[in-house]
């Protein structure tokens, strides 16, 4: 599997899109730090990027890479390599490449900023870690969707719908549900509902760390009230790690039954 991961990373390094992605983050990173002035404000801007863009880019790359290397996957499947390793190797290769672009792209501007002004770096490190995790989760989900269908358009469609659901629609529905049933005690429901969306989990983890109550939203407040900041953060990030196992299970299961 390591050889496949290595191959994918090498392949993506030659790919102009990875470079474009890195440059994009560098540009955004410097722009936010230079123009927003206040560091806590920039952190919130970074948070938006990480919560919305990282999963989207992971989704797009996951689908694109799978369908572009469909031929090569067939060649790999005819080799003495376990099926699971072929697909998981691809997933991890893409995730590591994207994650590295993210960490470098936002990390370099931050280091530059850090050298000038003394600010707390731990929030930023947490942000990058969460970005890495979200990217990995969404790349994996997108690949699981792609492996399940040979139809490229359908694969793209399903994967994008999944992203849209998690990034936008989910919160809307949660909010609607909370308004509709506001006369009932909803804390536990909200708490459980959050667990089913990795983007929400990431948001809560970082907001608990930043301790910005105004941005925390209902579920964030519930998390803090019920679990306290530290326990809440540990819990949210552990569930996020569990989320990273989901694509692994899905890809393995789907790939096992497919014909190529």
């Amino acid at each position, binding site marked *: 599997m390591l*050889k*496949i991961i290595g*191959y994918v990373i090498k*392949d993506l390094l*030659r*790919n102009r899109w990875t470079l474009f992605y890195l440059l994009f983050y560098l540009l955004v990173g410097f722009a936010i730090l230079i123009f927003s002035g206040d560091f806590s404000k920039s952190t919130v801007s970074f948070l938006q990027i990480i919560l919305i863009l990282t999963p989207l880019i992971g989704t797009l790359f996951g689908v694109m890479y799978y369908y572009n*290397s469909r*031929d*090569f996957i*067939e*060649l*790999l*499947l*005819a*080799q*003495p*390599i*376990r*099926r699971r390793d072929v697909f998981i190797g691809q997933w991890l290769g893409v995730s590591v490449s994207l994650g590295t672009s993210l960490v470098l792209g936002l990390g370099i501007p931050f280091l530059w900023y850090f050298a000038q002004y003394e600010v707390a770096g731990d929030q930023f490190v947490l942000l990058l870690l969460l970005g890495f995790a979200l990217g990995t989760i969404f790349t994996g989900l997108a690949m699981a969707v792609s492996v399940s269908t040979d139809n490229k358009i359908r694969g793209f469609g399903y994967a994008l719908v999944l992203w849209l659901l998690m990034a936008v629609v989910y919160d809307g529905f949660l909010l609607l549900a909370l308004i509709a049933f506001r006369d009932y005690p909803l804390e536990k429901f909200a708490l459980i509902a959050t667990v089913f969306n990795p983007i929400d989990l990431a948001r809560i983890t970082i907001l608990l760390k930043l301790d910005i109550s105004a941005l925390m939203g209902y579920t964030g407040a519930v998390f803090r009230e019920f679990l306290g900041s530290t326990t809440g953060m540990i819990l949210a990030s552990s569930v996020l790690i569990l989320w990273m196992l989901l694509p692994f299970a899905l890809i393995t299961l789907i790939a096992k*039954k497919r*014909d*190529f």
Partner: protein
Amino acid sequence: MVRFIEVCKRFGKLQVLDNVSIDVEKGIRTAILGPNGSGKTTLIKTLLGMVIPDSGDVLFKGESVIGKHKYRREIVYMPQIALFPQNLTVKELLDLIPKLRRQSARYDGLIERFGVNEFMHKKMNALSGGMRQKVNLVLAFMFDVPLIILDEPTNGLDPVAVLELKKLLREEEEKGRTIIFTSHIMDFVQQMADRIVFLLEGVVKFKGTVEEILQETDSSSLEEAVASLILKNQKVKDYA
């Protein structure tokens, strides 16, 4: 060496393989023939574990291959369409596959035989169909394995390369290798196959030697024999 036992496979409404049972003996060259869509490639893919049969079993050296992967160390497969990552050079590809297989490979003699040495440093996407097929052949023959599977090996090859391929196949047989191949070029099959399996709509219609098929169909050439088998079944019109 290889046994297909009552293999069935259905894709949606289409029964691609219908109770296929074939024995492939060690050390001989077996050709799988049939019109387009008769199930040749699917059959090969069940042996490679790429297509999972709905029922039946495929044995390699007496053991079922279903759900396993290590047995593929002893098999090399050359697909019908050259399936390569486009942005690798020929040399990078020839070095990558042995690493992935964790097997040593020798390609120096082969690249000269097929003239691949002239474009070793070109990227795959810059190669013509024939050039890719030559790379495909080098990949298939560079490992020292007991079973080689070739899906339409003559596709896009120039006559010189076809001659070279025939020579190579004979040499491989002398080394005791088993070869399974498909081809639409009946001359090639007639010269190269020790045994023939003829598939039509997923059903085995004939198994035997070239002489046997000629006798059975009362034909003077393999082309005629295959045509008469198809006409006899009168189902498939499009034979390419």
